[in-house]
């Protein structure tokens, strides 16, 4: 099978709609197809990877831990937009640390999260071959 540059664009907050959860499910499946996968978190999508999510009060399943598994599937390009964080009073410290082990570099733990500004995000989008957005 050909390898394409896939980008999954996440622009919505989790729990208010199912998009965040079902996007994550597609991303996990895409790993099985050995594609070149990137994730974009912008606008309200940045809330999908905040720390300390606690869903006991709303009765929904807390699926935020599953983002931590992405690194194990070699999905380690998570682009987070700086301006989106700032407008929401958030910083990178409010996000979960999401890591992967680089087997070509003595299995060092590296961050999967790339903080990019809006112009950089636009440039990354422009290089994709398939953009699936939710």
């Amino acid at each position, binding site marked *: 099978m050909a390898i394409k540059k896939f980008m999954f664009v996440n622009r919505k907050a989790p729990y208010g709609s199912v998009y965040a959860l079902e996007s994550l499910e597609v991303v996990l499946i895409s790993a099985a197809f050995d594609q070149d996968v990137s994730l974009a978190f912008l606008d*309200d999508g940045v809330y999908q990877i905040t720390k300390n*999510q606690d869903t006991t*009060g*709303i009765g929904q399943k807390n699926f935020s831990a599953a983002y931590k598994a992405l690194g194990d599937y070699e999905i380690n390009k998570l682009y987070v937009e700086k301006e989106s964080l700032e407008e*929401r009073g958030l910083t990178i410290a409010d996000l979960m640390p999401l890591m992967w082990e680089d087997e070509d570099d003595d299995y060092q733990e590296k961050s999967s999260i790339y903080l990019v500004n809006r112009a950089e995000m636009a440039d990354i989008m422009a290089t994709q071959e398939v953009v699936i957005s939710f």
Partner: protein
Amino acid sequence: MAMLHIVNKSPFERTAFESCLKHISVGDSVLMIEDAVVGAMQNTRFSAHIEQALQESSVYVLSGDLAARGLSQERIISGVTAVDYEGFVDLTVECDTTQSWL
């Protein structure tokens, strides 16, 4: 006659929240639920709107929705009150009518 305005949309994604705040009367209450809870946080692009609304009305946020999105009650705007679903019910009793801003 006091009205409880219920907002469930993020103020960063939709204009419903801003429209709501432009249509409240003195003494009305505003409750943020679902994705709207992100509007309760300090130092956001939207927080000035909430601070202004607090001058003539009461503003509440549903605690379960706040926690689900990883947002701490310690960082909500001063004057905004966190309530649970029972508190939500009490607000509907105290106000005469409700309006949902969808």
